[in-house]
């Protein structure tokens, strides 16, 4: 068994055919983590015993006739998704030692399907960052070049999948946190439309933008994992009661007749030429394979970063208020007063980037500034949403780069927050508009660094992006 290559669908097939048991498969994954993670730092914690127990239960269930695409398959979980009885640090000192008291809906759905929880993957603290350097505990390395970042914030999940330490993993995407690390590490990452997957039990960064999604080795794997996650949840009022289609069946539509939009604002100077060359090559190949290429406009793209960093930080400033040292998490030892307890617990517990965003978010909501910042940002957000709605009248999906650069060196951008924020330019608009997107590998730079192609689709258009990405992956790229 080669965990590096083994896809989720192959693993499921092997289990179904009894080529190996879940316990054997899980042991392989745990061994790979044991061997490689000292270098990659993809995981924050691994409950080997618990995973093997789940694997044994999955094997027993299969013996008694149960079957599911995820039954017995180990899946890495980003460390902000609650799994009852497991740590959930969000890569923050403020939640060091915290144990989840309940399952997130996505965890419960994986549990129900019989999946095995392989371990908790590293991330930027509270998902705030694009390199995973913001973790309070360790710096995850890019499996393609250990001196480089894996991207973020779901960098641990991406590195684990790409580095042969996981078959598949869950990430979350608030402004690109699934798609960008997938691109940097050369795996597939899908950000579902807002309201497609439950956020219940997923520690909130920016509530109106966050979505959980699959990070996998293939597009088909992403379809299978999404199938288990998607659907209305009574615990999350922002999930929509839209029927969940058969995503695997949707893969096989091909490229013929597919209208691929190229938003001209995404194809301007400023991006890495090698990245743009890979994306262009993918577009041309798809055109050659029968897709129709249309140029479209997303005129408010230039405001997306500003809008994102106002909306996201405003919501974060409230979402992170609960980490106050009163009920759980880090509490300063000898506070002078209740407000001293808040101030010291939070000063000790949060890292620099988290503090920066809380302060920014507090500022933009403050009386006298609200209208100029938050109020205006909401208006521009509506314009960005309308841009996409208009553009999707002319095309079925859009092809764009995921990030303007390939993976950069560890330390290279971490001292320049603005530079790092600008790296999110191609991913944040999808979150602001609530639409879906998938990152699929589309070649490498001369230095061997993976490049990601982003396929964007309209809200609840997961079938369209899966079809396009699958056709590209299977028919064109190979």
């Amino acid at each position, binding site marked *: 068994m080669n965990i590096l290559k083994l896809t989720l669908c192959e693993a499921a097939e092997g289990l179904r055919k009894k080529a190996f048991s879940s316990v054997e498969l899980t042991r392989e994954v745990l061994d790979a983590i044991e061997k490689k993670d000292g270098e990659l730092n993809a995981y924050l914690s691994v409950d080997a015993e618990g995973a093997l127990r789940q694997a044994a239960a999955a094997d027993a269930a299969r013996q008694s006739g149960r079957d599911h695409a995820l039954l017995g398959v180990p899946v890495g979980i980003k460390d902000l998704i609650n799994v009852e009885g497991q740590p959930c640090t969000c890569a923050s000192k403020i939640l060091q030692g915290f144990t989840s008291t309940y399952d997130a809906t996505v965890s419960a759905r994986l549990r129900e399907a019989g999946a095995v929880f392989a371990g908790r993957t590293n991330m930027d603290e509270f998902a705030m960052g694009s390199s995973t350097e913001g973790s309070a505990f360790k710096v995850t390395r890019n499996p393609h070049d250990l001196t480089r970042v894996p991207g973020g914030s779901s960098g641990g999940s991406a590195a684990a999948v790409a580095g042969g330490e996981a078959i598949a993993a869950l990430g979350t995407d608030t402004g690109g946190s699934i798609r960008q690390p997938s691109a940097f590490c050369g795996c597939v990452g899908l950000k579902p439309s807002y309201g497609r997957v439950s956020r*219940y039990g*997923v520690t*909130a960064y920016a509530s109106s933008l966050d979505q959980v999604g699959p990070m996998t080795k293939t597009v088909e794997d992403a379809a299978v994992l999404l199938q288990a996650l998607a659907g209305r949840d009574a615990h999350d009022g922002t999930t929509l009661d839209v029927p969940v289609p058969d995503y695997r069946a949707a893969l096989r539509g091909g490229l013929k007749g597919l209208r691929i939009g190229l938003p001209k604002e995404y194809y301007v100077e400023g991006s890495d030429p090698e990245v743009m060359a890979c994306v262009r090559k993918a577009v041309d190949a798809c055109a050659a394979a029968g897709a129709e290429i249309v140029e479209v406009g997303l005129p408010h793209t230039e405001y997306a970063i500003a809008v994102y960093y106002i909306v996201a930080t405003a919501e974060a*400033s*409230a979402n992170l*208020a*609960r980490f106050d040292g009163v*009920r759980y998490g880090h509490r300063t030892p000898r506070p002078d007063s209740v407000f001293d307890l808040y101030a010291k617990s939070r000063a000790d517990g949060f890292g620099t980037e988290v503090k920066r965003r809380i302060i920014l978010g507090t500022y933009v909501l403050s009386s006298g500034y609200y209208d100029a910042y938050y109020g205006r940002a909401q208006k521009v957000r509506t314009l960005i949403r309308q841009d996409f709605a208009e553009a999707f009248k002319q095309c079925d999906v859009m092809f764009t780069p995921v990030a303007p650069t390939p993976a950069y060196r560890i330390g290279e951008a971490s001292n320049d927050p603005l530079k790092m924020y600008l790296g999110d330019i191609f991913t944040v608009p999808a979150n602001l508009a609530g639409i879906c997107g998938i990152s699929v590998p589309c070649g490498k730079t001369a230095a061997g660094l993976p490049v990601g192609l982003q396929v964007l689709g309209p809200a609840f258009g997961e079938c369209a992006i899966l079809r396009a990405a699958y056709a590209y992956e299977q028919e064109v790229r190979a």
Partner: protein
Amino acid sequence: MSKYLITIGLETHVQLKTNTKMFCGCSLKFGAEPNTNVCPVCLGYPGALPVMNREAIKLTVMSGLMLGCEINPRSTFDRKNYFYPDMSKDYQISQNTHPLCLGGGVTIPTPTGAKRVRINHIHLEEDAAKINHYARFSGVDFNRCGTPLMEIVSEPDLSSPDEAMEYLQALKQILMYAGVSDCNLEEGNLRSDVNISVRPEGQEKLGTKVEIKNMNTFKGIYAALEYEIARQLNTVTRGGTLVQETRRWEPDLGETQSMRSKENAHDYRYFPEPDLVPVSLSDEMIAEWREALPELPTARRERMVAEYGIPEYDAGVLADAKANADFFEAAARACAPGLGKTVSNWFMTEIMRLLSETGTAIGECALTPAALAELVTLVDKRVINGPTAKELLPELFREGGMPEALVKARGLGQVSDSAALEGFVAQAIAANPKSAEDFRAGKKAAAGFLVGQVMKLSHGKADPKLVGKLVAEKLASPA
């Protein structure tokens, strides 16, 4: 000294009568062990999300309809940010910009006639936890955290503490009528903050506004208002200046104390709650809820006068508490037409007395409207007499049961048979020759004494009217 005008506005918080909390499935049972009715949602655990309690929306809208408010077809929730240990998320989910109900009002009696007190709006929010202070530490009980709380904000239309009391009483009565809250003051179901200012007569602009918090009883509100009016008048008449501030009522000291001035006012940084979608209410849904509304007390009073022929005074007393009026109407409807006044008499005298003696509410005693109706009917049909009925009532009140069965089992039916009674009449006259003589000498009152004697001889079961007739006949005939 020039005259001063007093301006008062109230922000009244009402705990809604839902089974579960506003955003989670936790129970709202009062008096449970601390921190037992809690879950990840109301404890603000990482990842927990609120889910709207539709019942809380319905009860708020029903309150709004009862108070003549306009219902917002699309209402939204906001986060109100502040750090305090009683708020598990360190923000409160409330409604800042698009509350559920707008406008409306309450009519109150004043010495100079009825007065309309306008309502600005009604919004829905979650209650905070309860903090208990002990000698060396403080404890937070999250059982209350997340209780649905409706806030009714009045316009500054009140001009005295008495009017404020009338307003609160009227509000309480309407809310209890609507069945949206128990309005139990001991359990903190109804709390009010007040805004108050004074200004010289003739001045258009309102004076400096002071907000007072921490009154747990209506008496407390009254006392706080009286104290604060005196304090403000004292300041301005001496040429002093008032500052816009929030003050806290200290019931033990009987005074208000400054909590924070305008400069130190919180910046709550309200913004739309992204975890909750806007609440959309269709016209059909609002119409359906309007259908389900109970009558307002004033309308009920008028209807009861017309329907049962009872005096306005009776109708007013009965309609005062919805449960009493419900009981009366159920009993009156179970009787033959024309007995409404009799049922009302029974309720107003005997039952009210029993209620006040035992300190119970009508819903807590064993007496049913059907039993009262049967009792009144038995008297009306002269199956039993009034005194017997009065004797039976306390038992029915305490232990329940139906009067007719008791009458039969104990043989309490009144004796209306002349032949059976004539013997008693003769016996009574024979035993009291002086009374018979007095009667014949023109002292008609002497007959009453003789009737009483016959009643005694019949062990109270004789039909008093018939006895009166027989006594008169007997005395009129030659001895």
